[in-house]
């Protein structure tokens, strides 16, 4: 499943870039993400992703690896985790792009390729896709709100 999102944030690119690397503030914008830890700054992180569809709950202890980093412009990262209770795995390949617009605006774009494997797939591709889409939308809006709110 591939998702593309783009959000215009009314703050300069440097500020958005610094925000992305501030794990605690950044994680607060990821719906269902808790217990984020820095294993190696700029390279490796861990977190727990908790998601819910009706009575179905999943908890993925997730490791996040930063694969590429181009100052102020691009980040490529991979997140993967497994919920052994349910017998499901998740993998997300994430490409984040920052473009500076005139008058101090930034376009934050990301492409996420999400793979869900295992029993969770029994819920149906459509339901999972919709949930993932919702999570990414909420994330984009939360980043915008937080950064713009901080002025």
């Amino acid at each position, binding site marked *: 499943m591939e998702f593309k999102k783009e959000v215009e944030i009314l703050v300069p690119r440097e500020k958005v870039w610094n925000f992305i690397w501030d794990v605690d503030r950044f994680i607060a914008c990821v719906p269902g993400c808790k217990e984020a830890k820095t294993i190696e700054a700029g390279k490796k992180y861990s977190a727990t992703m908790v998601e819910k*569809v009706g009575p*179905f709950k999943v908890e993925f202890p997730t490791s996040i690896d930063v694969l590429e980093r181009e100052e102020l412009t691009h980040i490529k990262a991979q997140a993967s985790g497994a919920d052994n209770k349910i017998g499901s795995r998740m993998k997300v390949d994430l490409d984040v792009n920052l473009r500076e617009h005139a008058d101090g605006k930034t376009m934050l774009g990301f492409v996420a390729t999400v793979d869900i494997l295992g*029993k*969770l797939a*029994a819920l*149906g591709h459509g*339901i999972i*896709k*919709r949930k993932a889409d919702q999570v990414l939308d909420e994330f984009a809006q939360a980043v915008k709100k937080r950064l713009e709110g901080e002025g």
Partner: protein
Amino acid sequence: MLRRFRLEEPESVAEASELLARLGESAKVYAGGTELLLAMKEGLIQYERLINVKKLKGLSEVAALDGMIKIGALCTHHELEKSSLVQQKLPSLHKLEQNVANVRVRQSGTLGGNLCFAEPHADPGTLLMALGAKLVAEKSSGTREIAAEDFFVDAYETSLQADELLTEIRIPDPTDHSRSAYLKFGYLERPSVGVALAFNLNGGGLSEVKIAVGCAGPAPRRVPEAEALLNGKGREEAERNLAQAGAVAGKASQAITDLHGSQDYKEHIVGVLLKRAFQSAVS
């Protein structure tokens, strides 16, 4: 494998509601178990306790009372397909119940359980919306009615409160002018698309038109924009407007591309089924 759980056996709805309030998310109401136990066996959900409501009295009857057909939430699909009252008064529901899932599911699965589990590909919710049904939610401190269109919130989510139980489904007693139909289409075990249509037909044409679509998206929903294209119209004009109403209903179905078909395909099928449902309802 089904993990160990404790079975609670309350003797009244109030007692069941109190258990739900006390146990919170660690417990779930258990009726027919056709979907709940399957999900538990697969390990997709786990509950420490199941609250068995199957033995509760008075929730398995069908009766015509006060201008309503009242169906107890514990009626199984099989009981409803065998009910002469349902067959006589609500032929579209009767036909739907004859075709729910398979014979094993119909034997133990209950109408109430089907609605409460809110599986997106279930049939009954869609037709109940078109029939103007009200669902009765009870808890120890009181009872309320929820219109069928307000019951489904999202996939697997309803507007029932944590300590409420669905006890009865109330459908307005149809008149001689009432027409309704539910049609579904799919090539997998569960339907890809379900469309329900109900209206009154007399000399003046169509009135009280209700259209609902289900299975295509996360939850069934009424489509007032499509209803408006048929409401108050003569039969011929309504027939001419069906294609447009079908297109509107297709867009409103929130169809999701999945193994049951692409979004475009499902939207198209909604239109096809609406036309056929109309023909079926007037014939």
